[in-house]
């Protein structure tokens, strides 16, 4: 039985990674999860300099999901390369570094700094709904997305994955722009912009007023978008949005994803990502699937 998948020339032992921001750089989870059992670890977004993030409260639970507005608090590339990359190198898993920035120059600086680091892929976050500058601004306009993808690709030594926002009218337009600019792969979807009001306190549940909705509540939207994008572009897709079980992952793969990310489920069960990888194998055994790649896009 083969569970390995290849994305932009990089082979993962299985199609499961973790969604950026839900797993830190893996250190905190490593007490509870064997990182060797993941196809890849995707780190929390890292910028050129440390970012403070948003005021608290930064999260709120919603029905079947949650809203977050952490605001990409991160230690900056210096501390990240000294501490987080060597930590992840101890494990037999692919390393995907999520890159964030406020301007094209910020992104380019981080991508250049990562050029000589032992990381396998870069995921470019152009879809965070919780920061005022950068983030989603690049991910909601096909021209801006094309430009930043081109600039990043020009300096990147590793394959680049553009992480797309669902907060657009037509996600296929964004996917095509990224592909045309040279993106090696796509991650989708990032969170949906949402809001929750605390009716007892008569205020917003998160200090940022709006936040990104994630969790099982958004899964059907994510599956639909993966399906649409898979039919619009040739580059591989890492599908995410509410995946909590092996069955959920299979759904994304059938919609056209090559690999999947487990995000919010890590908060409900720190072992969720490994359980998803095991669940995929159980499905394959049950239906006699020899190679996970056979299932990709099997629903036309």
């Amino acid at each position: 039985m083969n569970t390995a998948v290849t994305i932009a020339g990089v082979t993962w032992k299985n199609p499961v990674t973790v969604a950026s921001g839900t797993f830190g750089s893996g250190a905190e989870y490593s007490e509870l999860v064997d990182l060797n059992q993941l196809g890849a670890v995707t780190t929390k977004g890292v910028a050129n300099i440390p970012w403070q993030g948003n005021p608290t409260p930064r999260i709120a639970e919603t029905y079947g999901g949650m809203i977050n507005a952490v605001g990409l608090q991160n230690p900056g590339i210096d501390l990240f390369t000294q501490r987080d990359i060597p930590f992840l190198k101890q494990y037999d898993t692919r390393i995907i570094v999520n890159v964030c920035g406020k301007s094209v120059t910020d992104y380019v600086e981080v991508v250049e700094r990562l050029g000589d680091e032992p990381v396998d892929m870069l995921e470019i976050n152009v879809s965070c709904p919780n920061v005022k500058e950068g983030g989603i601004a690049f991910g909601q306009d096909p021209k801006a997305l094309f430009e930043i993808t081109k600039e990043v690709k020009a300096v990147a030594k590793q394959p680049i994955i553009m992480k797309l926002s669902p907060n657009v009218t037509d996600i296929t337009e964004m996917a095509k722009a990224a592909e045309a600019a040279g993106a090696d792969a796509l991650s989708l979807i990032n969170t949906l912009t949402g809001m929750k009001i605390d009716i007892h306190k008569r205020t917003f549940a998160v200090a940022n007023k709006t936040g990104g909705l994630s969790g099982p509540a958004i899964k059907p939207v994510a599956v639909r978008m993966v399906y649409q994008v898979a039919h619009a572009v040739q580059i591989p897709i890492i599908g995410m949005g509410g995946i909590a079980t092996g069955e959920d992952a299979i759904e994304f793969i059938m919609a056209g994803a090559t690999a999947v990310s487990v995000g919010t489920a890590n908060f409900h069960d720190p072992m969720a990502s490994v359980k998803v990888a095991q669940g995929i194998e159980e499905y394959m055994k049950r239906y006699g699937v020899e190679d996970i790649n056979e299932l990709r896009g099997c629903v036309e």
Partner: protein
Amino acid sequence: MATTKMTATVIHQEPIGTGIFSMQLQAAEIAKQAKPGQFVNLYSKDGSRLLPRPISLCEINGEAGTLRLVYRTVGKGTEEFARLHAGDKIDIMGPLGNGFTMQEEKAILIGGGIGIPPMLQLAKELSQQSVEVQVVLGYRDETFLDEEFAPYGTVYFASEDGNHGVKGTVMDAIREYGITGNVIYACGPTPMLRAIQAYALENGIVAQLSLEEKMACGIGACLACVCKSKEKDHHTNVNNKRICKDGPVFFAEEVEF
């Protein structure tokens, strides 16, 4: 010390006040490692409620492998826990957070409302170390756990309605009774902790404050539950300590909240 996620068994549960429940759990792997001021995450069985509920440890029995949690029902998640009976199972993770640093100095333990439970285990362990323990408990109106502290030290009360001890806050009780000590340990609502922080800093008393914030992962990865810190934090280097991991207990001079 290793954080463990496990399925615990409810040994006993009973209401001890209006919307306040006392739950005894068999959870040996966690109980044998836990210390006062640490907490556990409790997980709902209902898939619509994804995030764990962080609950402080009221009593820890390492030998018997049991934990006692005293919590208030504030929503559907805690209401689900309140319906559990002896023999029922619940997923929990812990021990989480740093806990109190026990100092061999005359102690004032201050608990306000649902911040009272973690003070019980602390009172017990400090008194075992022959530390002079004074306990100040603040309530809105109805009391709970108030009779359980007596074996470990002198207990003082404050209540908003004045029916139990001094009418007013825990700070009013400290002034009224002239309570003095070298180390304050406190857990309770934010306005109470701010008043204690100011009092401790003005009077040069060491104070350990247990803070609260909305949490997701509980292990320091998601960065949801930060507070402003005087020193650069270990994780991000931006003066944002993680309450779940670097705390929940901080020294008064360490944090702004």
